[in-house]
């Protein structure tokens, strides 16, 4: 394909797709071929710039693209066929929508004249993906193709990021028209508000200066805004001296080693983070959305505070929790505005109030809510994560996770110093996310150490992507905390369902070491605490994909925990405490 494009250069629809991807700065595509995308694959075959990563399942392709996006700040690009290709991508689309991850997913569709005829591998892709995308398009006219593709990137990456789908019928991929390169987009209707108004910024600074018990509660919005937002957040925390907690999605925006860090909040958050949130008089929410995993019982959430909420998406304001001061806009811009206003007006925190607030927080911290009873004989999952952290902290390390107890332990214990180094499925809680996500991260950061902290049940959901890791020489490390249970399910069954462990035992587990071998990867097993460090070092040193089978205590529970339907100050800290009171209403909650 030539690089010089004139106003009269005609291209096929397929060529337009590839050209538009390049013009949008795409280097990698995660995909899987099929009948309805054969023309695009044919164009790819003749192209030697775009790197296509062949996955083993379309769900894997979407999660890989999510990992890629979250670790780079660039959109992840996926190419799949019609029908089953598109339906297999639905989980990843929903995952990306919930966690605001920019994805551009291109799906093939049956030829225009066949649409509606129940043609082979036809499905109503735009219908199926409408509720799980930020926007989607069925391209009916090849003359619209280039514009729609450029618009797709624009919509996926601006405002509150999210996944988009462009569904391209096969006949459109063959038709020839003139290509239009990306220009300045002024969308007819879509105008995300990125610049915050000045009024609320001024008001926010007044409220912050007047606060006696303030706390920052930050989320994925800071990460999505870009590294500048994290830098500004650190500056603001230092300037004010306020404590800071974060959601699962926001880890790394403020460094875990920072003096103001309380750890994450919410259902499995730290005692100090939850108590601080519960007792504060000013809650400054920056790029988070008051998810039920964070708030617990909404009518008891941070009951005596005024609440400031910064979000780029106006629909998040007052959705779950009544907000006193909304700020709509991009996090970095709003943070810069607040910092400037704070400095220019010579605002200052109330030193006495803040000192006694920190004294109070120190008491809560002294509970050491993440402590656990270690063992000489069996590997405790918490210990395994602590060792993994200690042995990897001086490297460029990226962590992904699956979903379950291991994910919560990773959130609690792995210390993130920088944004974009932690990828996990937060909103959707998708088991099977971590392995392909790690693959996507590794593709973007070939020299980094990429570890998926996994559970033995989750990892089986997308295990086949090990084959892609081997094919593309991606040395991802799948660190399986193998407790032989769907541990999180088992924990809830213990606490809420009278210890009736219905179908939560991981029966007939494969031998992960042999499995690694079968894939052409490296299998490592650790069974006792004393051999763990050496085995982890072996995993780090081998420059190939690894399945690490870390056999851990099957009965360990993840604490602290706020039982469903309870308030932040009703936390259970350990097994030794009385069985929690879970109300009937609480049992209804997931």
């Amino acid at each position, binding site marked *: 394909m030539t690089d010089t494009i004139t106003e009269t250069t005609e291209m096929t629809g397929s060529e337009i797709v590839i050209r538009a991807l390049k013009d949008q700065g795409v280097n990698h595509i995660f995909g899987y071929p099929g009948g309805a995308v054969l023309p695009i694959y044919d164009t790819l075959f003749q192209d030697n710039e775009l790197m296509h990563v062949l996955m083993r399942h379309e769900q894997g392709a979407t999660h890989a693209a999510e990992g890629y996006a979250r670790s780079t700040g660039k959109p992840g690009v996926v190419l799949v066929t019609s029908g089953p290709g598109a339906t297999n991508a639905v989980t990843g689309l929903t995952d990306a929508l919930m966690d605001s991850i920019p994805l551009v997913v291109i799906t093939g569709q049956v030829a225009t004249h066949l649409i509606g005829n129940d043609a082979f591998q036809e499905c109503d892709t735009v219908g199926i993906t*409408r509720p799980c995308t930020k926007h989607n398009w069925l391209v*009916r006219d090849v003359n619209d193709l280039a514009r729609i593709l450029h618009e797709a990137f624009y919509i996926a990456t601006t405002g509150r990021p999210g996944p988009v789908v462009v569904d391209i019928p096969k006949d459109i991929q063959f038709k020839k028209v003139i290509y239009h390169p990306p220009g300045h987009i002024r969308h007819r*209707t879509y105008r995300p508000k990125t610049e915050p108004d000045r009024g609320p910024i001024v008001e926010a600074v007044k409220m912050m200066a007047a606060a006696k018990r303030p706390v920052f509660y930050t989320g994925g919005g800071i990460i999505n805004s870009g590294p500048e937002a994290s830098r500004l957040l650190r500056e603001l925390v230092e300037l004010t001296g306020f404590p800071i907690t974060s959601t699962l999605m926001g880890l790394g925006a403020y460094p875990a080693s920072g003096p103001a860090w309380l750890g994450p909040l919410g259902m499995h958050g730290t005692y100090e983070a939850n108590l601080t949130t519960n007792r504060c008089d000013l809650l400054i929410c920056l790029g988070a959305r008051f998810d039920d995993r964070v708030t617990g019982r909404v009518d008891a959430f941070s009951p005596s505070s005024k609440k400031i909420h910064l979000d780029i998406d106006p*629909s998040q304001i007052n959705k779950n929790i009544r907000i006193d001061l909304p700020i709509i806009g991009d996090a970095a811009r709003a943070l810069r505005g607040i910092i400037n206003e704070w400095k220019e007006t010579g605002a200052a925190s109330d030193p006495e109030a803040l000192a006694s607030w920190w004294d109070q927080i120190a008491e809560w911290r002294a509970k050491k809510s993440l402590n656990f009873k270690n063992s000489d004989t069996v590997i405790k999952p918490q210990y395994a994560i602590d060792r993994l952290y200690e042995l990897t902290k001086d490297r460029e390390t990226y962590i992904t996770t699956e979903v379950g107890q291991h994910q919560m332990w990773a959130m609690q214990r792995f210390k993130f110093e920088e944004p974009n180094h932690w990828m996990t499925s937060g909103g959707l809680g998708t088991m099977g996310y971590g392995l392909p996500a790690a693959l996507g991260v590794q593709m973007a950061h070939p020299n980094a150490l990429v570890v998926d902290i996994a559970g033995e049940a989750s990892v089986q959901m997308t295990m086949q992507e090990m084959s892609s890791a081997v094919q593309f020489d991606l040395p991802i490390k799948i660190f399986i905390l193998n407790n032989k249970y769907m541990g999180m399910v088992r924990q809830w069954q213990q606490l809420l369902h009278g210890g009736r462990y219905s179908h939560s035992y991981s029966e007939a587990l494969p031998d992960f070491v042999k499995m690694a071998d079968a894939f052409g990867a490296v299998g490592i097993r650790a069974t006792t605490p004393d051999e763990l460090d050496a085995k982890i070092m072996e995993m780090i040193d081998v420059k190939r994909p690894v399945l690490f089978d870390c056999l851990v205590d099957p009965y360990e529970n993840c604490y602290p925990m706020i039982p469903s339907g309870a308030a932040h100050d009703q936390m259970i800290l350990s097994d030794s405490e009385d069985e929690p009171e879970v109300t009937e209403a609480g049992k209804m909650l997931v």
Partner: protein
Amino acid sequence: METRIQRHTLSVLVDNEPGVLARVIGLFSGRGYNIESLTVAETDRTAHTSRITLVTSGTPQVIDQIQAQLGRLIPVHRVIDITMETPGIEREMALVKVAGTSEMRSEALRHAQSFGAELIDTSDTSYIFEVADAPGKIDAFIDLMLPLGFVEVSRTGVAAITRGAEAM
């Protein structure tokens, strides 16, 4: 938080592109909001915009959420709450079929005339009335017809507009 359920009429100006109505309806069903009535038609041929009028109900917080969520849909230009606009004007059209004996029919005809309903079709045994009015008035008209041989009704749903010189 205010928990009283209120009825609101929203006007939504959208790009008239394929699937836009499905996006709006999908939003309501997906998030569990009510739709009491919905009307849609292209209102500007050159700009390719349609106006959707939606009657919904919910607490003030839910109504705010509905507006904000509609605002997130990419092809939506604007959303306004007609109920909150000093107050907007709402009209609906209904075709009402009445059948029965001559005595009841003439009674129905008399009521229809005083209601400003128009007789648009007659047969030996039936009348069809066209009535265009505020939705509450149409309810009242139907209530009147119920004992007078009411057979069925077809309603358009509400169209609404703000007062004053400005467009939405």
